[in-house]
């Protein structure tokens, strides 16, 4: 079995090489002098690049770019005549789907799938069967032959199954068909050259389609790259703008409004306290001033003090006289001098006591405690004033922040959109890259040939 496989591979390689060489040769080269040629062709193509079917293969082979071109170049006949120069018989179709495991993938024809070895064996068996049928034209295999000049789709008789295997890592379709060349008189007897050229042109056409597809994907990838770079730039710019607006804090309209409400409430509370303190300051100051005035008035108008002052003046005079006599030598007046001095001091004491008494009755003893109270209220008032200044600034800042919140929210929305856009673009770019990696170049292999 292994040997058969190797032989098949060698045959395919030989046919391919010889086909390519012959296709490249000038018509003037030596002809094979054959009017019939046949081979089995295996076409593998990514369905994303070109969704092949037997109808499309048939059309391709008979198109002016493939069969027509070969007819013109090899046989020197009009491309219109190509319709009658060959017959295509459908042998097999195999679909390998890399995404078949995914929910959106195609349904598998065989639940367990088949491996490449089994597939090769199956293909070998079918090829042998097909070969036998070809050798026996009266067999049951149905073929299609188009009428001359007709472009209507040919009815393709399906003899096999559509196989799908999840073991293949890539997404590709494989078609097997037999190609029979039959050149009637007076066409040049170059059936083999014509067959090679047809297959060469078919391969070129498929490769061109694949290249175009890949080129298109590369273009899309480039656009996706540019879009991703732009989206990233937009996102970073918007984030920077957000930071500039908010000072790296999250701005929430409700929380800012709540903050403003709290500040206003605090201001109101402190203003009330301040008003209360100020009233107390005013009242205390006024009370002190009244006590001062009352004390001065009472001390200045008190009759007892007046009498005491007069008495003090008399005592003062008496003392001065006695002191004068004493100093002039009347030493016997020493007792009188001491007595006068004592009386003078006592009068002063009485006067001071009276003034003190009046001061107390006018409230003079309260002034000290009133001053203490005044100090406390004054300090409170100043502190509250400081708090008010600070709160006023906070309120101003919060109101400015509220204005910024609208911009912030709008910009946040834009940032979210930019972020989403970036995600989508990155996803798109990755998908493009994967698609490009997954695209399988088409191949046309010739298996056997007369």
């Amino acid at each position, binding site marked *: 079995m292994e040997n058969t496989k190797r032989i098949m591979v060698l045959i395919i390689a030989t046919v391919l090489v010889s086909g390519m060489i012959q296709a490249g040769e000038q018509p003037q080269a030596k002809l094979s002098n054959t009017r019939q040629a046949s081979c089995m062709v295996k076409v593998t193509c990514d369905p994303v690049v070109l969704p092949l079917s037997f109808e499309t293969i048939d059309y391709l082979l008979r198109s002016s770019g493939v069969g027509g071109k070969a007819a013109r170049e090899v046989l020197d006949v009009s491309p219109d005549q190509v319709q009658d120069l060959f017959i295509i018989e459908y042998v097999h179709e195999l679909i390998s789907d890399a995404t078949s495991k995914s929910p959106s993938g195609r349904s598998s024809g065989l639940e367990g799938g088949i491996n490449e070895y089994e597939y090769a064996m199956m293909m070998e068996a079918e090829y042998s069967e097909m070969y036998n049928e070809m050798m026996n034209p009266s067999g049951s295999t149905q073929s299609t032959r188009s009428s001359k000049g007709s472009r209507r789709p040919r009815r393709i008789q399906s003899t096999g199954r559509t196989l799908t295997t999840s073991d293949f890592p890539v997404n590709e379709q494989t078609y097997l068909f037999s190609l029979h060349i039959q050149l009637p008189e007076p066409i040049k007897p170059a059936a083999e050259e014509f067959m090679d050229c047809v297959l060469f042109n078919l391969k070129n056409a498929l490769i061109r389609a694949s290249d175009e597809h890949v080129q298109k994907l590369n273009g899309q990838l480039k656009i996706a790259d540019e879009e991703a770079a732009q989206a990233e730039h937009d996102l970073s710019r918007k984030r920077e703008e957000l930071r500039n607006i908010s000072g790296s804090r999250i701005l929430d309209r409700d929380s800012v409004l709540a903050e403003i409400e709290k500040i206003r409430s605090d201001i109101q509370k402190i203003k009330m306290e301040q008003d209360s303190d100020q009233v107390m300051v005013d009242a205390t*100051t006024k009370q002190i001033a009244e006590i*001062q005035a009352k004390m001065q008035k009472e001390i200045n108008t008190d009759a007892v003090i007046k009498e005491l002052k007069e008495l003090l003046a008399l005592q003062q005079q008496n003392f001065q006289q006695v002191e004068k006599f004493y100093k002039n030598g009347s030493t016997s007046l020493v007792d009188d001098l001491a007595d006068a001095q004592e009386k003078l*001091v006592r009068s002063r004491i009485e006067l*001071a006591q009276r003034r003190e008494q009046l001061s107390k009755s006018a409230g003079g003893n309260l*002034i000290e405690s009133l*001053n203490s109270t005044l100090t406390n209220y004054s300090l409170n008032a100043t502190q509250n*004033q400081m708090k008010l200044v600070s709160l006023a600034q906070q309120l101003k800042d919060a109101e400015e922040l509220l204005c910024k919140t609208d911009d912030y929210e709008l910009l946040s929305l834009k940032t979210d959109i930019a972020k989403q856009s970036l995600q989508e673009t990155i996803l798109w770019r990755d998908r493009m890259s994967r698609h490009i990696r997954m695209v399988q170049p088409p191949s046309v292999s010739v298996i056997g040939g007369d």
Partner: protein
Amino acid sequence: MEQDRIAALESQVRQLNAQAEVAMNLIQEVLEEERRQSRLDELEAQLANIPDPLEEMQKQVDKTAYILVYQADRLYRELNQTDSAVENYRRVIELFPENRWAKVARKRLSEIKSEKSNKTDSKGDMQWKTQNASWS
């Protein structure tokens, strides 16, 4: 002889007694003087302990006026609350016109007034300059 000697002795004793009495009187006088001085000192101390209510009151009023001026200074200089400061300065002048802090309050009011007039002038200058610029 014996009698003469006795008489002399008696005379000496009398002299000594007289001297002792003089000494005693002197001591009594000194003691009395000390007692008198002590009493006088006590009275002076008592007098000194009685505070002059008007002086005390003046001190307290000084303190009151100082508190108001101090508060006004903070409002004016630290918190830039000129209106509240002016109110406090005026209160000091109104309630304690003779106090030394009332003089300070007057000085501050004068400063504020001149500052305001300077600002108004500079604003006027600016307006004038702006107007000139727009005309030119």
